[in-house]
């Protein structure tokens, strides 16, 4: 199901982990069982000040329900662009995207917006929150947009904020919160509608290690409840929390690896943890 540029770099672990995997048809035909997101041959070129830059060159991607996928790579590799394409924030130059079996190629901006309301939640590195709304309003806004009544929206919001440890901060403005708190509010906002897919673009990029740990913990917790997550990051710790790590380089997928479920394999190989502290004799 996943194709990478370099023919040798295939993942043997992958087919083991997904016994239900089946061969795909020609690009353009959705498979029988739906992965939540399916992308084929995505291409996106940025036209900036100088020469045009090909940010994404022919990337294929499948994400199943409940998967936690991390996308890593050096900066400029096109990770953020890929995430923007999957969230409808930018339109691909060519290629197709299917969400839960429906083709999104013909979607206009308004339709993407509706999709983002109900089924996709997005967390960015910066500028996540509307600066002149309180925390409570920020979190409730997507719920109201999706058509939920104000009372229900308020209940959902209270529950989420409580869960994320922000119970006392409903009335604060985003400017009064620390970076870590802002990201947690952003997470709450992205999750208030229980989206099918959560897209996170460097959520811990501007945080210190404590903030990073908080984000990690929260993402793992939601993943344990069944949330599908696509995480773009260059932090190895965050990436290692995912089930599957896709490495992008220069706009192409170079590796698509499933990580060991419980880390036993590492111990079995005799290196890893025991090698943390090497005491000389």
């Amino acid at each position, binding site marked *: 199901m996943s194709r990478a540029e*370099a023919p040798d770099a295939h993942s043997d672990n992958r087919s083991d982990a997904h016994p239900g995997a089946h061969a795909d048809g020609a690009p353009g035909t959705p498979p029988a069982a739906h992965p939540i997101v399916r992308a084929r041959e995505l291409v996106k070129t940025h036209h900036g000040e100088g020469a045009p830059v090909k940010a994404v060159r022919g990337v294929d991607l499948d994400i199943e329900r409940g998967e936690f996928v991390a996308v890593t790579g050096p900066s400029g590799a096109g990770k953020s662009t890929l995430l923007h394409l999957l969230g409808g924030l930018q339109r691909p130059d060519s290629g197709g995207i299917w969400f839960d079996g429906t083709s999104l190629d013909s979607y206009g901006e308004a339709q993407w917006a509706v999709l983002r309301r109900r089924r996709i939640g997005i967390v960015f590195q910066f500028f996540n929150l509307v600066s002149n709304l309180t925390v409570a309003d920020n979190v409730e806004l997507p719920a109201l947009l999706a058509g939920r009544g104000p009372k229900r929206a308020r209940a959902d919001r209270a529950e989420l904020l409580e869960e994320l440890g922000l119970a006392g901060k409903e009335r604060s403005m985003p400017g009064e919160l620390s970076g870590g708190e802002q990201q947690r509010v952003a997470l709450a906002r992205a999750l208030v509608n229980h989206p099918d897919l959560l897209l996170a673009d460097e959520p811990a990029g501007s945080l210190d290690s404590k903030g990073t740990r908080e984000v990690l913990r929260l993402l793992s917790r939601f993943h344990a409840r069944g949330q599908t997550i696509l995480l773009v990051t260059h932090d190895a710790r965050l990436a*290692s929390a995912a089930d599957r790590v896709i490495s992008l380089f220069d706009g192409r997928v170079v*590796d698509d690896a499933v990580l*060991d479920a419980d*880390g036993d394999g590492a111990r079995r190989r005799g290196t890893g943890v025991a090698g943390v502290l090497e*005491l*000389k004799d």
Partner: protein
Amino acid sequence: MRLPLLALLASGPAHGYELKQDLEKLLGAAYPQPNVGQIYVTLGRLEKAGLIEGEEVAQSTRPNKRIYRLTEAGREAVRAWFDEPTDEPRVRDEFFMKLALAPQTGLADRIALINKQRRQYLNTMRALSRLAAGEDRDNRVAQLLIEGAMLHLQADLDWLERCQEEFE
């Protein structure tokens, strides 16, 4: 292991089993179960070198314990160990050798090597995360140790990316 054992004895005399327990308590789960036999062997070597001296203590129901105590020379050695700066950890030069030699042999592909190594690091990182989650939050020494290892791993991964850029 020699100098850490000497350092442990600097706070007071102890016997082998106690030392093992102290090590465990100090380093936590980051350090696998210290091998008792290895500890006794090291203690014996240290006694021969004159850095510690041992004393038999009789016990009624069990075999005799041997209690060790730091000598003046031992104390001096511990002081010297603390005084001199420690070398940085070496670069994982084995992997680098593999990477450098791969194209010449024609038996392995650089990109594949890098990918495999990356997967290795990520798995290790995952295991370390789990370790840190399982460890007692207040055991600062253990947590710091694990975090140090993670930072090293992050550096190794970044270096892998650089290699990939250079060799693409």
